[in-house]
């Protein structure tokens, strides 16, 4: 019943979006709420029933459910064919098809669930903003695109959702389009995403060329069929290209620069799109393509290294930022790095689990920060906050829960997922790869530090607010706090779904996901080559002792971070000094300016910054070649031109008097003389033309009748 009509899930929010775009301007806010929030609530309930039905359908085997509505692109009867690498032809064929397996059901549940809560929250947060219907229309459109992305059964369909969420991200970042910074940020996000999208589409087409299909199930069957060697170069290239796409969407080095700027959008948008759902699309896509990635160890290593670098890099920037949302933005980038680290070391389930828990606590953090901003009448700078604990109690304790979760304090959600990732990193491969573990460990320390720094600066330290702001501080309405509370409960409890074996749990979550990833674990072990991953295999090896030690270490890191933050900021009065700025001013400057990456990009790619009068990088090369073209090549051309001109002057004379005089004007005069009688025939009556047509008809007729 529900499973067969799975295509309706994205259509509910699409319906809401259509209503908003066509009729939204005339609707009351209550109607907008009813339509848009209602659509998402219905989608959530439908998704829940669908997943329940799916578990009955799959009987724990994880057998994917596929529903193909119609062929959307290409066709089965010989159009749009292409020649595969091995010389056979395959048809370019993408269905409007839907795939439900454990992986997509997890995404489906938390996207609709968190999306629903954020919709409810937005009714309170956006209550006094203009463009209310536009906002909700975009949000619903986003839900539609995201659900399409999740439920797609092939790369092309996924690409539709991929581009759709990119578009919605652009629209929502630029929601306050009258602000220059917002529209610039929107453009930046869109353009950076395009780079990733190019990589993605190239990767998908490479796969299609190599394997002959876009469908995940086909690709998985082929990739796991054992026809390809580990490290097949084409598959490696395809995986790397796909990873470029993931980098763009999920904000990894070097394409992470758009995400911090995306905070220009309204806070619910940051929570929904730029923390909980859209940015995890890259993780989803890599996890979805795991069969290909497993065959490309180089790509896997790239993913792991890029993920670890991003994690530590972003966390280091987050240490010193003052804008509350920017801290969270860098935190998001850092946590996404964690996820990719997990994927890269082959711990797909751990990465997905971190996506799952992260969705709750990061959405909660953003929504809480939105609530803080709401309470502070739009103030976002933490230097002007402080002592909000008792004035907005609900926001305070929910954010505290989220902070504990993200810092990895037992037994909050973040502890389990982060610990799992670190453990898998440690256990996956020895040797130099242990460095990745140290990087991740350092990141965990930094995470605890900057999150508690945020908490202390905002809630505990002495008040640094201006008088007006202090006067206006108020707790947010019910529509905003209730989602916060629900998310807080989820942030506490979500981790228990995968209580690790070592602590006497049974890791339900990983069991559930096992069918999606387990097959390649088997492949790898059979090949006996890559000891890099295979979580199931390592299970037997690991000693509880090491795992306990690592757990203790990460708890200790969280504790140390907490302690340092408390020491530095618990008594930060007005005009306080950052400890890093005091101890190491150059490092502070470097971190505060985000390692000067944006400036570097400006030098190298966009050309907005110059050294003196000379541009560097890509634009510089363009300018240089432009100069070369203008001075050298054009100069030569001009010289040649002068010679030509001289010749032309001579030939002009010849042309004017000899050719024109005799050759052209002569016949012209003749033609004019003939034209006087000819003019009698075309005398401006339309019907004459019809008569000529009849004459032509007669001619044809005579030819065919008497030929």
């Amino acid at each position, binding site marked *: 019943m529900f499973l067969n009509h799975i295509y309706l899930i994205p259509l509910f929010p699409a319906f809401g979006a259509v209503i908003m775009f066509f009729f939204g301007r005339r609707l009351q806010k209550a109607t907008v709420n009813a339509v848009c929030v209602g659509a998402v609530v219905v989608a959530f309930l439908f998704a829940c029933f669908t997943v329940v039905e799916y578990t009955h359908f799959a009987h724990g085997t994880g057998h994917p459910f596929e529903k193909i509505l119609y062929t959307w692109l290409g066709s089965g009867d010989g159009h749009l064919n292409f020649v595969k690498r091995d010389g056979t032809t395959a048809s370019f064929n993408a269905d409007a098809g839907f795939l439900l397996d454990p992986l997509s059901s997890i995404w489906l549940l938390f996207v609709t669930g968190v999306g629903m809560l954020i919709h409810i929250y937005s009714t309170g947060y956006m209550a006094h903003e203009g463009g209310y219907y536009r906002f909700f229309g975009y949000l619903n459109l986003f839900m539609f695109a995201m659900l399409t992305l999740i439920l797609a059964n092939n790369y092309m369909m996924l690409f539709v959702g991929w581009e759709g969420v990119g578009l919605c991200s652009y629209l929502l970042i630029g929601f306050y389009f009258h602000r220059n910074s917002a529209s610039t940020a929107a453009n930046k996000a869109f353009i950076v995403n395009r780079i990733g999208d190019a990589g993605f589409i190239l990767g998908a087409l490479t796969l299609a060329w190599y394997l002959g299909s876009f469908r995940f199930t086909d690709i998985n069957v082929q990739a796991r069929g054992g026809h390809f060697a580990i490290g097949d170069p084409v598959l490696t290239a395809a995986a790397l290209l796909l990873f470029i796409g993931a980098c763009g969407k999920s904000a990894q080095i070097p394409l992470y620069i758009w995400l911090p700027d995306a905070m220009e959008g309204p806070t619910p948008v940051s929570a929904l799109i730029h923390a909980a759902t859209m940015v995890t699309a890259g993780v989803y896509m890599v996890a979805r393509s795991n069969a290909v990635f497993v065959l490309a160890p180089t790509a896997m290593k790239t993913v792991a290294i890029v993920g670890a670098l991003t994690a530590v890099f972003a966390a280091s920037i987050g240490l010193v930022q003052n804008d509350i949302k920017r801290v969270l933005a860098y935190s998001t980038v850092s946590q996404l790095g964690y996820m990719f680290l997990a994927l890269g070391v082959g711990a797909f389930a751990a990465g997905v689990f971190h996506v799952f828990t992260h969705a709750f606590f990061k959405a909660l953090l953003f929504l809480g920060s939105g609530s803080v901003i709401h309470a502070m009448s739009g103030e976002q700078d933490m230097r002007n906050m402080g002592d909000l604990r008792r004035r907005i109690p609900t926001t305070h304790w929910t954010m505290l829960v989220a902070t504990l979760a993200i810092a990895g304090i037992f037994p909050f959600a973040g502890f389990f997922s982060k610990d799992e990732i670190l453990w898998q990193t440690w256990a996956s491969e020895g040797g130099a790869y242990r460095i990745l573990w140290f990087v991740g460990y350092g990141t965990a320390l930094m995470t605890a530090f900057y999150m508690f720094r945020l908490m202390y600066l905002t809630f505990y330290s002495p008040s640094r607010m201006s008088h007006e702001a202090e006067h206006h501080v108020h707790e947010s309405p019910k529509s905003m706090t209730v989602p916060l509370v629900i998310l807080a409960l989820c942030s506490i409890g979500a981790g228990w779904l995968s209580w690790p074996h070592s602590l006497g749990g049974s890791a339900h979550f990983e069991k559930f996901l096992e069918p999606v990833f387990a097959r390649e674990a088997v492949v790898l072990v059979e090949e006996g080559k890559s000891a890099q991953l295979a979580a199931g295999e390592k299970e037997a090896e690991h000693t509880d002792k090491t795992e306990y030690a690592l757990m203790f270490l990460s708890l200790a890191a969280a504790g140390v971070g907490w302690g340092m933050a408390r020491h530095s900021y618990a008594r930060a009065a007005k005009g306080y000094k950052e400890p890093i700025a005091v101890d190491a001013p150059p490092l502070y400057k470097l971190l505060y300016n985000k390692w000067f990456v944006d400036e570097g990009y400006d030098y190298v790619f966009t050309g907005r910054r110059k050294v003196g009068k000379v541009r560097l990088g890509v634009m510089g090369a363009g300018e240089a070649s432009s100069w070369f073209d203008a001075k050298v090549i054009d100069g030569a051309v001009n010289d040649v031109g002068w010679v030509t001109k001289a010749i032309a002057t001579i030939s002009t004379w010849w042309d004017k008097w000899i050719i024109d005089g005799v050759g052209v004007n002569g016949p012209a005069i003749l033609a004019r003389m003939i034209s006087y009688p000819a003019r009698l025939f075309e005398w401006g009556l339309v019907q004459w033309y*019809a008569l000529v047509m009849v004459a032509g008809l007669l001619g044809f007729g005579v030819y065919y009748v008497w030929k």
Partner: protein
Amino acid sequence: MVPITTLHYLVVAAALFVLGAIGVLTRRNVVIVLMSIELILNAVNLNLVAFSRMWGNLHGQIFAIFIVVDAAAEAAAGLGILIAFFRNKETVNIDEIDLLKW
């Protein structure tokens, strides 16, 4: 009585076509010229349907339907032009529509 065959329909269609052609070629009133065009189209339709019957398939009838659609479009556009023209020159005589001659 001779049974009616395709030939009979062709004769009727030919007659209608010739009448339409005369109207197009000789009348001054644009409206009547347009009507004569409709006559011509009808003659063609009659031919198509008669041949559809002769060959026993429906393609001719489908063509006839398309021609009817075409005639509707032509009438709408033609009469629109005529109204616009009449508003400017207060005439519907085709031999006074000669601005482009100059």
